[in-house]
């Protein structure tokens, strides 16, 4: 263990540092994604400039938006179920924070080092469905309820391909620990050549594509944004929310995009690591301490690339119809990922 992180600090200082680190790891990607991709990139793709007034090149726009949301009136519909209406956005955001707890950022820079990290990630990401469902129900609005139900149906359907896509990676790495998966990729070799490690995007390309499609659906980003389809359902389960509570949903959406990009980069792109052969590291104990600083930066870069892809798809495609969406999950993605698991298992035994 690193001396800085664990040796002499009392338990409460460690916990405090972890909470602060978790806040940074959730809010920083969310802010970057919203400004860089949602404000600027979308504008350029649509041949306009986007926000230009607040700060140089509109860079302070984010703070202006947050300020605007914070000062808006907090409205609860008269017929709504008040307590649950107020809890629902927090459940969704809590799921994001629980998700980031398991992501490793460096050889010693992690929040928790779960033995069954991948499994934990899949379990916790499904908690947000609960928040969305009760948000839709408690709003006492038919559009909201319909949006919540659509979201639940979609999230359940796309959770399966996600789990199945990850199983290929688990089989290949031989561990469910995310740290172990990073080490297995960077310490690996391709037919005896170890100059690049063995990032699983090469061997598990099918799994990677399925995982990214499932992430797009879990985030309800545009080809899969049936739950908040504005031309049919106003704004789905978020219709009745205003001010700070809407901001909570908004942050949760883009923070989860960031966290899922982080997880995808850990599973398929080698995570925080550089190929160990470059510096003659044999195992995780040999790794120099400076990787704890460089690792998060590498992770952040990979996260930005994957988030860029998610947003790119979001701005490019029209939305699915509800039946197309369900058929695509059950009849295309799930069979392909099952075949992928079978082939991976056979090759694992063969080599």
């Amino acid at each position: 263990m690193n001396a800085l992180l664990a040796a002499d600090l009392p338990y409460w200082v460690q916990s405090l540092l972890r909470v602060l680190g978790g806040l940074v790891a959730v809010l920083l990607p969310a802010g970057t994604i919203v400004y860089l991709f949602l404000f600027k990139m979308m504008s350029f793709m649509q041949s306009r400039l986007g926000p230009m007034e607040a700060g140089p090149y509109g860079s302070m726009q984010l703070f202006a938006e947050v300020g605007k949301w914070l000062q808006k009136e907090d409205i609860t519909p008269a017929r709504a179920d008040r307590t649950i209406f107020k809890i629902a956005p927090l459940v969704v955001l809590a799921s994001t924070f629980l998700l980031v707890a398991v992501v490793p950022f460096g050889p010693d820079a992690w929040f928790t080092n779960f033995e069954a990290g991948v499994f934990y990630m899949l379990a916790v990401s499904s908690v947000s469905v609960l928040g969305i469902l009760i948000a839709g129900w408690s709003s006492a609005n038919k559009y909201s309820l319909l949006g919540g139900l659509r979201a639940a149906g979609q999230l359940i359907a796309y959770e399966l391909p996600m789990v199945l896509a990850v199983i290929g990676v688990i089989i290949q790495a031989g561990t469910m620990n995310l740290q172990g998966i990073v080490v297995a990729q960077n310490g690996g070799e391709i037919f005896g050549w170890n100059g690049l490690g063995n990032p699983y995007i090469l061997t598990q390309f099918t799994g990677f594509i399925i995982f990214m499609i499932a992430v797009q659906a879990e985030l309800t980003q545009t080809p899969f944004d049936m739950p908040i389809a504005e031309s049919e359902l106003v704004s789905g389960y978020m219709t009745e929310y205003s001010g700070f509570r809407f901001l909570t949903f908004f942050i949760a959406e883009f923070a989860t995009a960031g966290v899922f990009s982080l997880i995808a980069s850990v599973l398929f792109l080698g995570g925080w690591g550089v190929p160990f052969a470059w510096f003659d590291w044999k195992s995780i104990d040999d790794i120099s301490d400076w990787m704890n600083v460089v690792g998060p930066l590498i992770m952040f870069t990979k996260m930005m690339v994957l988030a860029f892809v998610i947003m790119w798809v979001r701005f490019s495609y029209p939305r699915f119809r509800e039946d197309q969406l369900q058929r695509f999950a059950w009849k295309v993605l799930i069979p392909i990922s099952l075949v992928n698991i079978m082939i991976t298992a056979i090759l694992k035994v063969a080599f």
Partner: protein
Amino acid sequence: MIAADLLVAQNVGFGIISLLMIVAALRVVTVKNVVHAALWLVIVLSGAAAQYLLLSAEFVAITQILVYVGAVMVLFLFGTMLTRARIGAESDLNNKNWALGIPVALLMLGVMSYVIIDGFGSERLIENPGDMTQVPVQVISDDIFGPYLLPFWALSFVLLVAVIGAIVLARKD
């Protein structure tokens, strides 16, 4: 047992979580709204997951969250919201046979206690709570696919039958 043995963090945590679970379980059957009852049930099930974590049975805890909170309760809420889930109190939620539940619950409690005491007796999980280590997932899978392979197959078969049954029920033609 002396007080120093009882007041370790695990025991305090166990007490707090159990209290929360008992209160939530009572609310499940007394609350006047179907959705509220389901949400209290979520707290009971998550509490069970937290208890497993305290016993450093991490894999079981995560399975509990994945299966019960992530799937069963979502399906439950989905079903009630599709059919009938009014906002506010409802009066006719009590079944007239509710008293029958009490002896059944007591019987279950007796059977489960007997099984646990008979199975483990005076065995303790570990001598020193400080030495608690996580059980590797590999050990669990070796057990499932080794000595417990036949029960595992039987369970899979039952689930397969359930899936086919659901398809048969859902098909109109």
